[in-house]
């Protein structure tokens, strides 16, 4: 415990010396610059893992760890999520009781649009995620909302991601609405804030801790984090949404997880997705 503390202290001190360099990426509404953040993150990973191609970060940890990549490639020979994509397609195309369907709720009939989520809704003054809109589509057509973490919502989301493969993420932060930038900043802050009994931030494991074993797990890089969701995790033995993973990660730091689709999580998704701009959507994915 003591050692951990001392280490943490050392890191903090080290971080202070970095602050002058890092300050230009912005920590408040006056200075925050999402595009500078995105470029800085890519540079960070390029210098940490010079061998890895930036475009390959859509494959998470497998972009930087050859040993696990080989097993993952074996899994991808016949990915475990295929049944779910099939089921998702069927659900997506099943009409509601009122005769309408998911295709009526989304742009382009819901096909090939995953890379545009989440987005800032000026009307509602909040970040909207794909899963959120899937459920809103149901409710506005008189259907019960689905549970957020797994099952049908993950399958529908997986099918929609499948139809969007190789489309480039292009998350926008509208300049004419300060609240959008504020949401981004909140997400960034969430990512870097230490919390829980283990006193860990997302960044501790997924920026500084990338590819450094936590017992037997290798944390994935933050760059490209959201591109491949929903994900079939061997650990779960099933498909799960991004917010299910957020809850799990949150628990791992011994925090009480927030509810899926909580504003904090949506802001976090907004920040993380912006960081993945320029990378392609490649969901659903399979992970350990």
């Amino acid at each position, binding site marked *: 415990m003591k050692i951990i503390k001392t280490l943490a202290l050392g890191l903090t001190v080290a971080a202070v010396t970095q602050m002058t360099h890092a300050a230009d990426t912005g920590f408040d509404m006056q200075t925050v610059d999402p595009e500078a953040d995105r470029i800085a993150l890519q540079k960070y990973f390029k210098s940490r893992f010079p061998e890895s191609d930036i475009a390959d970060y859509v494959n998470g940890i497998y972009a930087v760890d050859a040993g696990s990549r080989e*097993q993952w490639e074996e899994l991808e020979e016949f990915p475990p999520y295929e049944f779910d994509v099939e089921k998702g397609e069927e659900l997506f195309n099943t009409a509601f009781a009122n005769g309408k369907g998911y295709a009526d709720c989304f742009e382009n009939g819901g096909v090939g649009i995953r890379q545009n989520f989440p987005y800032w809704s000026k009307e509602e003054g909040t970040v909207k995620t794909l899963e959120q809109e899937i459920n809103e589509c149901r409710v506005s057509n008189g259907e019960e909302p689905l549970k957020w973490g797994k099952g049908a919502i993950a399958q529908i989301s997986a099918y929609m991601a499948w139809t969007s493969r190789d489309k480039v993420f292009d998350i926008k932060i509208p300049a004419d609405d300060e609240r959008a930038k504020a949401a981004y900043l909140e997400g960034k802050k969430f990512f870097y804030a230490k919390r829980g009994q283990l006193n860990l931030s997302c960044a501790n494991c997924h920026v500084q801790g990338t590819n450094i074993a936590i*017992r*037997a797990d290798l944390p994935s890089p933050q760059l490209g984090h959201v591109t491949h969701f929903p994900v079939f995790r061997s650990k779960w033995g099933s498909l799960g949404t991004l917010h299910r993973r957020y809850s799990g990660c949150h628990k*791992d730091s011994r925090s009480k997880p927030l509810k899926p689709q909580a504003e904090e999580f949506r802001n976090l998704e907004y920040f993380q997705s912006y960081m993945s701009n320029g990378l392609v959507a490649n969901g659903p994915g399979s992970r350990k």
Partner: protein
Amino acid sequence: MSMNRRSVVKAIAAGGALVGASVLMPRIAMAAWTTKAFEAEDQATAMNELLGGAAEESAEVTLKAPDIAENGAVVPVTVSSSMAGVESMSIFVENNPNPLVAEFLIPAGTDADVSTRLRMGKTSKVTAVVKANGKLYSASKEVKVTIGGCGG
């Protein structure tokens, strides 16, 4: 490799509860599932029950498996052999409760090259046994199964 009594009884009991003969038919047509081998709790017994003996190590048997399994629930494994006349290929995980994982029957014309995914409860030696021209050859590899830190 005849069907032993217990599995016949089981098949009849199960088949009877369903559609009877039509369910039973393909079962008999297939190579028997050897209960004694699959239920054996040590590898030597399992191997003996399934293949009637022990295997000798051979460089002509290739077992591809990870050094460290990402997840013990899904360990990708490929068994292949350059030998001619391969009749079957079997996989054993020594430290599993029942070491015999699977037996693949290789008819003439099919490559002696099969991939699958298996479960490992803990770190163990994994052994592939190839039966060719009535003889048994093997290759083994230790696969580590570790406990992850990210349970959520």
